[in-house]
């Protein structure tokens, strides 16, 4: 017994070392199930509050670019209004009271604007923290876009903050398609460069060209159809391969991301319930 105690005292530092390493390692492994650790990550309000403060300083230097973006968007929207007004006025004489206008159910969206208060682009697993949470109506699985295109999907929500898994994370899998011919595939990030991602599952018979635009397919309920994702930068296919290797230049610059919109799809629950019901009946 005395020997045992002596042994323990002699090697106490080694045991402490092993204990601390085991704690750290189990934290890393547990962290793969991301939700469990929300308490200790940047959804934690104290840390987020500090980031918000630091961001308010940095944001000042990005105002110019943000203004440019806003005015561009403004003109695009104005043009759209004019187009729609023209269409409406041409339709008016024919449209009597009996025909009433109805928005298709998959297009009923509302946007919640939010600000990025923490983000990374150089890790293998990148995350983005937003300054809006469940109070503002953000829920898990909502899509996030910026004026330039797709950003990611909301993964965890606390009362006042939320964490987004962006395209720059191997865990994200966003369904995309070619604007030209509607062939769809999954967008995956390879972990090297924050400007590029790769598109998978495009079979070799599909016709491609450099610079083709890639947009969201609308098959996942997080995003409506047709939001820009990027352009084809480069594609390769070997003699023996069945699928193309396509390098996509992302339209969003994740390095300067500051204002985003969270998409609130109003018929999400209804669609999910119906799909679940029909699966159960089979």
């Amino acid at each position, binding site marked *: 017994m005395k020997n045992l105690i002596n042994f323990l005292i002699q090697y*106490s*530092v080694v045991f*402490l*070392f092993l204990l*601390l*390493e085991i*704690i*750290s*390692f*189990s*934290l*890393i*492994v*547990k*962290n793969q199930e991301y939700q469990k*650790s929300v308490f*200790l*990550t*940047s959804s*934690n309000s104290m*840390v987020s509050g500090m980031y918000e403060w*630091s961001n308010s300083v940095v944001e000042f230097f990005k105002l110019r670019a943000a203004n440019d973006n806003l005015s561009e968007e403004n003109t695009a929207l104005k043009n759209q209004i004019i187009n729609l007004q023209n269409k409406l006025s041409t339709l008016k004489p024919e449209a009597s009271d009996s025909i009433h206008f109805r928005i298709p159910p998959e297009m009923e969206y509302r946007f919640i604007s939010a600000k990025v208060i923490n983000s*990374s*682009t*150089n*890790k*293998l*697993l990148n*995350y983005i923290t937003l300054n809006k949470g469940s109070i503002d109506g953000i829920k898990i699985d909502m899509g996030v876009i910026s004026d330039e295109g797709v950003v990611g999907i909301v993964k965890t929500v606390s009362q006042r903050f939320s*964490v987004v898994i962006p395209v720059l994370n191997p865990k994200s899998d966003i369904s995309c398609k070619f604007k030209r011919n509607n062939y769809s595939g999954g967008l995956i990030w390879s*972990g*090297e*460069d*924050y400007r590029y991602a790769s598109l998978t599952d495009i079979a070799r018979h599909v016709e491609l060209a450099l610079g083709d635009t890639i947009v969201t397919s609308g098959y996942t309920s997080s995003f409506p159809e047709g939001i820009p994702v990027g352009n084809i930068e480069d594609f390769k296919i070997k003699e023996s391969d069945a699928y193309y290797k396509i390098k996509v230049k992302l339209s969003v610059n994740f*390095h300067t991301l500051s204002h985003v919109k969270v998409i609130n799809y109003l018929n999400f629950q209804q669609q999910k319930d119906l799909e679940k019901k029909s699966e159960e009946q089979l």
Partner: protein
Amino acid sequence: MPTVLQNIFSFIFLVLFQVLVLNNIQFLGYINPYLYILFILTLPVQMPRWFLLILAFILGISIDIFSNTLGMHAFATVFVAFFRDGIVKLFTNIEEGNNPTPSFYTFGVSGYIKYIVVIVLIHHATLFTLEAFSFVHFWILITKILLSSLVTILLILGIQSIKTK
């Protein structure tokens, strides 16, 4: 007593500097220096090892909480803290009873540089390997480790050569 206060201050400063400034540096997508390891490097040589390990763990976990990487920095920092004493003995010959703070003056220039280089390389290698969690992108991993270590080492040497003591 002043050294304790000095160390508490440098702990807070290094964590904030790392989180608010250095974590935003993403030069070429490869270089992300982790300067906070300087805290472990400047603690007195004869500090009890158990205390050093616990300090390393607290330092690592603070960085982790801010950068969404729970456990990774803690693991790497505790890892180098454990081997620090051995590395000090390897490169320097400090007399019994002396308790110097590592610097150019106490270790000698070449001894100090070797000490910094080895510890930073071990720390960065552990950290980036844990982050990748696989050897699939082996060469990217190696480039990241080497480039980031180089920048960290240069930063540390620069800071230490300014210090006069």
